[in-house]
């Protein structure tokens, strides 16, 4: 009878473990003090990452992971490294919610999952292969790359370098130079205050609404999409606009400098100054005044 009871308890214990391994997640909540200047480095294979900020010199790591997975939070010099150790499989999701100092530089490397960052005043380098990258805030240099995900940034105060292959890019209220590159997606840049902007896609439109500095350089290019440029009425620029099958429309009076068979144009708007290059092989290039 005693052995039967022992067997029953053993089976129950195994059942609990197997059940946990198959479906249940372990919650984690740890807080690690960090020195000023410490950089966050998070590697994750599968699972969403959410990062928020607070005014403490510490990083709080919350989230969930499968039974059997351990999450290492490892301070090493000026880096706080967070990585999950998943024996057996990369396919068990580990979801993180981190709370970090607002001035902490962030590096996230993710294979599958979304990254959502808000409130930071520091630079960041974020890669997600399968997943969207959404950032509110940020400063210094923001390097954001995805293959199958949309990149969205709002309110950054620094240079933004955004790249995706199979989705679009949307940058809003950016004070800093911008480089945006996609293949199969549109690029929308609104509220940009920058001296150097480059946006290039193959299959999608490019929209730019923002300042045009007299010493600035701006380049917008698409193969299959249109280019929509909206700039202040008092802006001055020297344009080159090139197309093969497309057209050019402008709401500004222009002084034509050169034109080639309706395909390539060089002209001045206002008193000149900025250098703006527009290219669309198949699409319409449109230059409008703000508020038009």
């Amino acid at each position: 009878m005693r052995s039967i009871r022992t067997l029953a308890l053993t089976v129950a214990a195994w059942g609990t473990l197997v059940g946990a391994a198959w479906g249940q997640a372990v919650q984690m909540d740890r807080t690690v003090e960090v020195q000023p200047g410490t950089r966050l480095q998070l590697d994750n294979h599968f699972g969403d990452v959410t990062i928020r900020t607070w005014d403490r010199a510490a990083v709080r790591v919350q989230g969930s992971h499968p039974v059997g997975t351990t999450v290492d939070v490892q301070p090493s010099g000026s880096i706080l490294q967070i990585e999950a150790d998943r024996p057996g499989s990369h396919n068990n999701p580990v979801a993180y919610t981190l709370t970090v100092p607002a001035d902490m530089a962030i590096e996230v490397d993710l294979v599958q999952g979304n990254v959502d960052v808000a409130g930071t005043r520091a630079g960041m380098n974020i890669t997600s292969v399968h997943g969207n990258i959404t950032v509110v805030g940020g400063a210094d240099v923001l390097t954001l790359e995805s293959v199958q995900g949309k990149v969205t940034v709002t309110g950054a105060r620094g240079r933004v370098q955004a790249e995706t292959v199979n989705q679009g890019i949307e940058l809003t209220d950016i004070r800093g130079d911008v480089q945006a590159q996609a293949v199969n997606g549109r690029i929308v840049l609104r509220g940009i205050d920058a001296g150097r902007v480059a946006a290039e896609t193959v299959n999608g439109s490019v929209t730019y609404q923002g300042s045009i500095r007299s010493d600035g350089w701006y380049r917008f290019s698409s193969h299959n999409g249109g280019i929509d440029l909206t700039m202040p009425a008092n802006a001055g620029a020297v344009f080159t606009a090139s197309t093969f099958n497309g057209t050019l429309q402008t709401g500004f009076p222009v002084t034509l400098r050169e034109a080639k068979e309706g395909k390539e144009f060089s002209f001045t708007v206002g008193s000149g100054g900025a250098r703006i290059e527009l290219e669309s092989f198949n699409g319409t290039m449109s230059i409008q005044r703000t508020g038009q």
Partner: protein
Amino acid sequence: MNAHPTEQLSEYIDDELTPAARAAVDAHLSACAECAALVADLRAVVSAARSTGEEPPTWDLWPGIARRLAPRSRGPQVVAIESRRPRHFSFSIPQLAAASIAVALVSAGAVWFAIQGGAGTLGPTASTPGSEEPITGGMEEPISGGTEDRVAGIEEPATGVTVADGPAPVGTAEYEAAVADLERLLDQAALDPELRRAIDENLAVIDQAIRQTREALKEDPDDVYLNTHLASTMQRKIDVLQGAARLARAST
């Protein structure tokens, strides 16, 4: 303003103009932002090609591509160290488009090297695919390449490149062979099928753009925009393949 001295800019960069001609170009450049920018772009391409030639070990690490680039009869030559002599960079303008692709292919070679383990993990000797000969030593500098390289700043792209002597653009055979090498690399990697499908679809988008641009160039082989657009689109394909190759490495 006088006509743009486009045909003289190569000699201008190489300091081969007569003093009078050089003075005339200088005067034009001081008044023409377009030509000044073009000269800056051309110098950047020349500089990149020159620095490429100074790093033959990088090429040696990807012999498949290096072999294809070495016999180029036009454009910057990739030469062995022992046969290299002070190089004279006198480009006809079409070769500059080829140079920009050649620079991209250097990065492609770097990706191959990175995929094999990276500079930091390469031992004293290692074999290269398709070659019985060991290579010795490693890279002097870590390879970052691709998007990482752009972190340093937003560079104005090379513009104003035109074809002066016919429609054979940008070392097509070499380019296609290099792309094929990278694609074979991807085929050998265990990329997630959904990701691979997405990459293939996007490569198809780029290929269509390249085809359309090449068709357009048949109508107007000297067109500046079409040539630069073709070069940048071809480079975009290399960029995507490089990124995919890095993912393949990261996934293993």
